[in-house]
């Protein structure tokens, strides 16, 4: 065979994953390479392959995060597409949707294509840009949604996340407009007047701590309005980071009525409660805020019964100085990519509400579908792209700085004990994480450029 | 092992003698202000005042009170925060003869603090010091004018003063020490 005829996948390493447990509980070997998953079964040949012993590990399709802030361009001191991609890989993700609140905002074809290219050259995950709904996320004028949709970035998810599209007419128009290219509006549901200067969940604790309350009704009233708008115009709505029991009720009602709405919950809203605010430690400041124990229970139940479709991280990196200060002055947000699977494990798997097949659905299949992302969220089957994660559910660890792989360290879980650990992540047939360690950026960039050239 | 060095009767006799000595040095009860240093010094001051009153039934101007020294101590930065006790200085002490009363005289630092505290209340003509026990080991140039009992001690020994009003029983004993 001449060197010219050599295919890229033949240059690529082949992998045999020995004895992994699939989400349905069955055990199998998995062979994969740059072309995808090539063989499943017991006792597969290891010829020409590097072997990974996956005894006791769960193999999940690569995780898909519909909601992350990668901060580039504009806020590279918090995160870059590269560093955020590393954090994602560390957490078992093979695809990340990058929110639009960059500087400049991802509100034109040029910016979304730039972010897409940064993701491609980083090579750890598929970085899928989200487009802004309005110019500069200012809530005044629709951004060029069509141009972003037909750009190389193929944007389908549009969001002003960080801000609510609170103008009802603008929201209506956005919902209508994205029907042209099967887009979806991902709404950050927060009535701005009801949450002026809001600092934490409104309730007994906010009254005691003297922090301005962020009432549940400010979220629920927008969701109620938006589902009715979506119904009225026959479009598709996605509700970002649902945080209250009332929101779950509204969405449950909307789905029963046949409205085309999907919803996400963050790992932190599934695990943490507002009681953590008591010490005024700004690591626990997030928007929407941590809520009550009752809300957490309702969110878990909503995820279990399918009212809430997916888990998305709302990974929000911030530099140290944005958290090392008084509560009012601190930035909202937590990093979450690295910890997501463990936190979801603790919140809903360890409690018996979801099994690993459900996890595949809420953290891989459905988010890929909502985002209309091809090549992600497929089951582990022969012919599927080689996107997968090996997770050790029996591990426990005190979550520490060494578990973070991004630029920022504003994790609420530092020094908490969390279950499970991602042992390996495969993206496009090559490992981005191996033996629990993120592979170096240079190695991954080389792998990625090879695939891009020949793929 | 604690061993008793003064019994209740010894204490009563010592206070009676001290009371006589105070009257003798002051040439009577006039203009006397007897100030105890909390806690047990205040009890001893009241007893001395009672004895003086019995010796001199005609005395009407005898004044007794308490002088807390906590806020004047020189070791406030060390150890646990101390809760001050009540200071009650009966009237003006300007021109008076003040007798400070404490249970045990040791380093002299408490008395130095007391002299500072007293100065912030006024200007007595004379200040005297009465103590039930002087155990030595002075760290400052201070001595008592009236002493119930001199008890030479080692620094690693403890003097326990029990009085009926504060402790329910009454004696002075010595504790600890390597050579007893």
């Amino acid at each position, binding site marked *: 065979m001449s060197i010219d005829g050599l295919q890229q996948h033949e240059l690529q390493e082949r992998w045999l994953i020995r004895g992994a447990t699939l989400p349905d509980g069955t055990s199998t070997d998995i062979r994969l390479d740059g072309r995808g998953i090539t063989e499943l079964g017991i006792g597969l040949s290891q010829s020409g392959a590097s072997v990974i012993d996956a005894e006791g590990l769960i193999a999940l399709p690569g995780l898909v995060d519909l909601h992350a802030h990668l901060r580039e361009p504009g806020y590279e001191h918090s995160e870059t597409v590269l560093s955020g991609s590393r954090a994602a890989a560390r957490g078992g993700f093979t695809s990340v949707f990058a929110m639009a609140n960059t500087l400049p905002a991802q509100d034109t074809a040029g910016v979304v294509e730039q972010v897409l290219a940064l993701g491609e050259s980083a090579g750890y995950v598929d970085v899928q840009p989200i487009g802004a709904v309005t110019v500069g996320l200012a809530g005044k004028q629709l951004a060029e949604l069509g141009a972003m949709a037909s750009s190389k970035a193929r944007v389908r998810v549009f969001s002003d996340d960080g801000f609510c599209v609170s103008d009802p007419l603008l929201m209506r128009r956005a919902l209508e407009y994205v029907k042209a290219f099967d887009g979806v509006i991902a709404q950050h549901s927060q009535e701005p007047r009801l949450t002026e200067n809001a600092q934490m969940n*409104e309730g007994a604790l906010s009254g005691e701590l*003297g922090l301005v309350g962020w009432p549940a009704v400010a979220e629920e009233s927008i969701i109620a309005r938006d589902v009715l708008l979506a119904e009225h115009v026959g479009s598709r709505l996605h509700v970002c980071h649902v945080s209250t029991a009332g929101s779950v009720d509204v969405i449950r009602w909307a789905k029963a009525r046949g409205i085309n709405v999907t919803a996400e919950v963050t790992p932190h809203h599934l695990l943490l409660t507002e009681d953590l605010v008591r010490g*005024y430690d700004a690591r626990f400041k997030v928007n929407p805020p941590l809520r009550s124990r009752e809300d957490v229970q309702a969110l878990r139940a909503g995820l279990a019964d399918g009212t809430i479709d997916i888990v998305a991280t709302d990974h929000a990196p911030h530099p140290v100085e944005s958290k090392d200060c008084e509560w009012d*002055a601190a930035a909202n947000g937590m990093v979450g990519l690295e910890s997501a699977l463990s936190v979801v494990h603790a919140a809903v798997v360890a409690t018996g509400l979801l099994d690993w097949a459900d996890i595949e659905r809420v953290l891989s299949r459905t988010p890929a579908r909502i985002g209309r992302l091809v090549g992600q969220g497929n089951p582990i089957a022969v012919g599927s792209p080689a996107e997968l994660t090996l997770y050790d559910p029996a591990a426990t660890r005190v979550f520490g700085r060494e578990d973070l792989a991004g630029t920022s360290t504003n994790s609420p879980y530092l020094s908490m004990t969390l279950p499970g650990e991602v042992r390996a992540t495969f993206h496009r047939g090559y490992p981005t994480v191996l033996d629990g360690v993120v592979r170096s950026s240079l190695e991954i960039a080389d792998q990625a450029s090879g695939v891009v050239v020949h793929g | 092992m604690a061993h008793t060095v003064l019994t209740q009767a010894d204490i009563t006799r010592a206070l009676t003698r001290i009371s006589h000595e105070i009257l003798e040095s002051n040439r009577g009860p006039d203009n006397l202000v007897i100030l105890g240093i909390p806690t047990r010094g205040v009890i001893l001051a009241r007893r001395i005042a009672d004895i003086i009153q019995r010796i001199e039934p005609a005395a009407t101007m005898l004044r007794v009170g308490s002088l807390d020294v906590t806020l004047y101590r020189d070791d*406030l930065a060390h150890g646990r925060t101390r809760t001050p006790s009540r*200071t009650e200085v009966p009237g003006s002490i300007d021109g008076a003869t003040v007798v400070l009363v404490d249970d045990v005289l040791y380093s002299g630092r408490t008395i130095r603090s007391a002299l500072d505290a007293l100065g912030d209340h006024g200007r007595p003509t004379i200040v005297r010091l009465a103590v039930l026990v002087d155990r030595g080991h002075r760290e400052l140039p201070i001595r008592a004018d009236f002493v119930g009992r001199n008890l030479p001690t080692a620094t690693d020994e403890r003097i326990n003063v029990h009085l009926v009003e504060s402790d329910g029983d009454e004696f002075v004993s010595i504790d600890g020490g390597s050579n007893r």
Partner: protein
Amino acid sequence: MRHLLSTKDLSRDEAINLLDIAEDMADVAEREVKKLPTLRGKTVVNLFFEDSTRTRISFEAAAKRLSADVINFSAKGSSVSKGESLKDTAQTLAAIGADGVVIRHPASGAPAVLAASGWIDAGIINAGDGTHEHPTQALLDAFTIRRRIHGQASRGTGLDGVSVTIVGDVLHSRVARSNLWLLTTLGADVTFVAPPTLLPSDTSLWPARFSFDLDDAIDAGPDVVMMLRIQTERMHAAFFPSSREYSRVWGLDDARFRRLGPASIVMHPGPMNRGLEISSAAADSANSTVLEQVTNGVSVRMAALYLLLSGDRKESKNVD
């Protein structure tokens, strides 16, 4: 005591102990020499991110009467207003060698952040943080009530069975919160009277009664009526329709004042809006403790400074 951040943290014994020490400090104010050598060589920094001349001079007088050195650090016109962070300010004060920091800050929890930060090892006194707490104000209020009721026999006593009605902008009042915890810890019964817009939306965890009717509350014959300052800017945020309506419905006017019992106590943390939340007749009456509160503030703050800054701080760290 390592820090004084909230009255919620104080046990009954700790609170009474502090008030008793304040009685000792008040006695000092009666003497010819009003100064104690107690905190000689200690440095107290008044770190004020919000203007409050009254509170600052009260702390300053308290620290000086205890012979501490006082540094006033006003954020206005300083590097802080030019964007210096709380962290950098704290580290600067630590480098100067502050033993105690009295902090007033517009953000709730700023003193707690300072105390927990490790940026500075000093004892922290919360002199008012946002809409959270103002512990020394509550302590001086309790001290004032106790003295009015028990006089010379105040030492060692609580406020058992004393009924206290607190009227006004409870939602934004750090004085109301600190008084709630302290007065109830001391055994008092607290009733809040306010328009519904100026109460927290959820008061289920507050050990108090709530009422929207000031006349009912007055006719119940409370031992103490405490009027809170109403800030007129609240009117613009639609918390109530107009200052005239507020005054008519929620103010201690002459008629309501006359219906109070002869021994009742009228309090106000100051500064007062005469004619808005309180009438001049009420404010200037013999029932009013407005000036006693100012005097007692110094004694209470002396007690707080003494408890924080004496003793071995490393040892007290282990205790807390």
